[in-house]
């Protein structure tokens, strides 16, 4: 029986990771991406290799996922990661009151943390707010978004996956009984319409998931929730610096190359193709960022951008559980051949792919289990060295 052919729509983190996973499980994979690798939300992610600390108190399931995946990514793709750890720092009394439940939940989720005195913290990171009250070391890290995706995509390509970039899905092909068995795409570089058949179509378009499910007459419970990120032109810290409190706006500052990136905010948006930057949010980032690292005040912004989180389910803003959902539309709507994966975070791209691949393999009767946990990824440049 020839290899089953899977079409994955979207070459963001989930798309490329799923391609990598399915390629290792004997599938013939084609990834369709309307732009280039990672040009949607994934490219503009904050870049935090999440330790789960931010979610330990209110969303344990997410936190556990994060810490496990954090450790796995450090092992399988070190070439794109700044593994320098992170700090949760308390500036005001209200932050301190959050400390106790924070310590408890981190331990519960298996996130290794150590408390530091302000002097110890300042010795490690001289540029953080000098009048901090307390600090916790936590295994955060940062990564380069595009190269993380290219590492997965390159390895997938090495194992036989094909990537069709600048190719936009115009419609879903069905078998007459409403089951999806392919896609109609426009190759934008060549201005040519094509029809590609597949055993399963995986909709991994993140915040745009609704556009694809819309083509099958369904709506995807994804709530696009953009947030602002501001990159400043000096690397003032070596670690990720988080505000010790309930998740809020501008509560994380990351080092990346020779910059620090302050993020983020959270609001609802309909048209996800272009989210304009608003001045008040830029000011908010400067304010909140400089509460953590005062030195930001005498740096210059280098890049200001919006990234749209694909949050799962109804409800607005931050309250949605920060985990992910994989819908087999056969079970949810009786439409076979279409699987939607949305939600989740950058750090959990591998496990999202694993779950999606499990669903796809179950549909196709492939009983191979996931091996991506132990498979080191090739150099991210392999994506370019292997012809398409």
């Amino acid at each position, binding site marked *: 029986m020839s290899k089953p052919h899977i079409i994955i729509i979207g070459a963001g983190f989930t798309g490329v990771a799923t391609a990598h996973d399915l390629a290792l499980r004997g599938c013939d994979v084609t990834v369709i991406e309307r732009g280039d690798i990672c040009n949607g939300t994934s490219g503009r992610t904050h870049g935090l290799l999440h330790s789960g600390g931010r979610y330990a108190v209110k969303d344990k399931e997410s936190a556990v996922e994060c810490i496990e995946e954090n450790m796995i990514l450090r092992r399988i793709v070190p070439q794109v990661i700044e593994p320098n750890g992170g700090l949760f720092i308390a500036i005001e009394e209200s932050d301190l009151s959050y400390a106790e439940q924070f310590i408890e939940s981190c331990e519960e989720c298996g996130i290794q943390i150590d408390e530091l005195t302000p002097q110890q913290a300042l010795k490690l990171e001289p540029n953080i707010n000098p009048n901090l009250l307390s600090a916790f070391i936590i295994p955060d890290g940062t990564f380069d978004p595009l190269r993380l995706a290219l590492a997965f995509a390159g390895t997938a390509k*090495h194992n036989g996956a094909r990537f069709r970039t600048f190719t936009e899905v115009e419609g879903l092909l069905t078998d007459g009984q409403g089951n999806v068995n392919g896609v109609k795409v426009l190759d934008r570089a060549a201005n040519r319409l094509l029809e590609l058949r597949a055993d399963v179509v995986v909709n991994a378009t993140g915040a745009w998931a609704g556009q694809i499910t819309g083509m099958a007459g369904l709506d995807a419970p994804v709530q696009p929730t953009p947030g602002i990120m501001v990159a400043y032109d000096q690397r003032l810290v070596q670690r990720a610096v988080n505000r010790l409190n309930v998740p809020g706006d501008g509560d994380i500052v990351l080092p990346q190359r020779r910059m620090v990136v302050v993020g983020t905010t959270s609001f609802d948006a309909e048209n996800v193709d272009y989210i304009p930057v608003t001045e008040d949010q830029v000011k908010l980032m400067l304010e909140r960022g400089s509460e953590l690292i005062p030195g930001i005040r005498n740096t210059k912004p280098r890049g200001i951008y919006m990234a749209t989180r694909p949050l799962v389910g109804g409800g607005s803003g931050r309250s949605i559980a920060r985990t992910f959902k994989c819908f087999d539309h056969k079970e949810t709507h009786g439409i076979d051949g279409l699987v939607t994966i949305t939600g989740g975070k950058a750090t959990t791209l591998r496990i999202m792919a694993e779950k999606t691949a499990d669903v796809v393999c179950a549909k196709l009767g492939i009983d191979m289990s996931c091996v991506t946990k132990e498979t*080191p990824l*090739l*150099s991210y*440049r*392999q994506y370019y*060295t292997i012809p398409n």
Partner: protein
Amino acid sequence: MTTPSTFKPVSSPRPGETAWLWLVKIVTGPLLFLIFILHLVVNHYLGSTASGLMTYDDVVAYFQNPLIPAIEIIFVTAVVTHSLVGLRGIVLDMNPSRPALNAVTVLLVALGAAAIGYGIWLALVIAAKGL
């Protein structure tokens, strides 16, 4: 360390143009510049004609000191080598095929040898005229 690259490079760089060729240019260059200053002053200030150029007899007299032909020979060898190695560099920038490049290299070497041979002969002939 990234995993070892498992691919054949786009084109393995063509060996040949090595540091030595570049060093030849870089060594002869400054040497030429020094001799050139001497050459310029001598030919425009020591000659007996109005504009300072040398007449036939000036040249022959000038060549009597054995040091002068020696310097002239070094000068012609260095300047011909420098210019032709440079010319080959320009040809390289036209991305010639391997055979074309070899042909050009042979041609340049031949041209260079001829010019240097001729230069040495000329210097000795002039020097001999004064004996």
